[in-house]
């Protein structure tokens, strides 16, 4: 039991962070507005979680311009994918 809890990643305790990782793990990339719409969040709320995940190196952002509008794309990093998978495996083992 304690073993399982140890494998659950603290960085994914928030459901919003889980949502971000879920979206980025099945899409090549996703932009800020798409994620905002998918999860029905406010700008500030989403931005703070994205920043936190980027800070620990689980995701990466790329800024670009579409026409004149700034657009931020996010991708999952190798480390992020590994950690997310470990977290999912831990979740799964809880129900075995």
């Amino acid at each position, binding site marked *: *039991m304690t073993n399982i*809890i140890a494998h*659950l990643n603290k960085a994914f305790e928030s*459901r919003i962070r*889980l*949502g971000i990782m*879920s*979206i980025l*793990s*099945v*899409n090549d990339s*996703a932009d800020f507005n*798409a994620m905002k*719409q*998918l*999860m*029905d969040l406010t700008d500030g709320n989403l931005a703070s979680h994205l920043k936190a995940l980027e800070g620990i190196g689980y995701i990466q952002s790329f800024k670009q311009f579409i026409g004149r509008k700034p657009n931020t794309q996010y991708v999952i990093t190798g480390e992020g994918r590994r950690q997310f998978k470990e977290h*999912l495996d831990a*979740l*799964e083992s*809880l*129900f075995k």
Partner: protein
Amino acid sequence: MQFKVLLLYLMNKQLEDIKAIREMMEKSTKFISLSGLSGILAGVTAILGTAFAYFYLLKDPSFTDYSHTQELMILLADALIVLFISISFGVCFSWRKAKKNKQNLFNKVTLRTLYNLSIPLMAGGIFCLVLLFRGDIWMVIAGTLIFYGIALINVSKYTFDEIHYLGITEIILGIAAAIFVSNGLLFWTIGFGACHIVYGFVMYRKYDLKQND
């Protein structure tokens, strides 16, 4: 005792987490704004369109004195009107559903879905037009069903899984229509009419009603 309560609480939270993860993975990769209602209405429109073609033109050719070309034109117009009305209903209901889910209808996922649907559909549409102008109207019936089925199977990866089975049904009906030529219109009515109504009804009950709660 305390440990058990904690464990139950933890399991409950993780179960909710897993649900949220699943939902986000699906929502971000699949087109789920298609409403079952548009399926039902498309089916009804198709049956009305077929009924018009059958009773006005095909049942008793001596009833009207159109030339062969005029007949083909009327059939083509009939089919295009049915197609237009069905697509309009589809767009309208999808737009409503997307709005209710607070999503943009025209995002990356929708465009990818439309692209994958339209390739077999366009190919089939052009092919059937050629058949129509060559006068082989019965093979047009089979062709539209078969190509529509292929288009549905192609698109099912990007939307509800159930569409896959609708696609297979349409292909089987199309092949049946090619073999039993004299019953072609019947198979066409089943494929575009009855199947859409049944499918729309099932989807509406399974997805749309649940969301309204």
